[in-house]
């Protein structure tokens, strides 16, 4: 589910880049990038099975 939300967030970021003021788009990108990286870091610190 969290990946579904992640794609939804990035869709919003791309839509912001196309429709919103520049600063809003940049801020949205920064937030989405930090959250995506945090998800990656959270998962790599878990005991892993096949690919995650």
């Amino acid at each position: 589910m969290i990946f579904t939300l992640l794609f939804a967030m990035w869709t919003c970021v791309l839509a912001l880049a196309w429709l919103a003021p520049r600063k809003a788009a940049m801020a949205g990108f920064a937030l989405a990038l930090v959250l995506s990286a945090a998800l990656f870091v959270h998962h790599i610190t878990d005991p892993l099975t096949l690919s995650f």
Partner: protein
Amino acid sequence: MNARSLSLTLNAASLYGVSAILIGAFGFQFLRNELPCPLCLLQRVFICALAAGPILNLRFGPRPSHYALSMLAALAGAAVSARQILLHILPGDPGYGSAIFGYHYYTWAFILFVAALVLLALMLLMDSQFDWTDEETRPGPLARAGILLAIGLTAANILSTLAICGFTACPDNPVRYELFQHR
């Protein structure tokens, strides 16, 4: 064609490149029924993120900060794909998914992210594209179509991921669409 026009054309072309990669990923998912694992999904996320810089460049004119956004996305994507390569690097490990021309998807993803970094750095070398930074640009129909295609394919991944994972955590090794399973 001046540097600014060339830059905008290349930015529009890059959106078609990102879209082609996402379409290719969907192709393997639906035609070969190879569902993406969570790390693969994260790589797709960063491929989608690559499109943010070109969209901003096409709308507000080329700026180094827009290229920086795409470079950060490429760097994060390269880290994720390198992680997956390392997970499967031991001798005897078959890797995840099938191979294309001898390399698995995540190896190709790593190559693509590094190539994106190199191309973005080369674009930054073109100084004269930044001479007009104050005016908002009006992208042509092909550029607009590229923007909508990239946004649409990112949105399509919402539905695809929802189908794969359902409303729970994504399986490590997905073999079916969890949303459509009746329990």
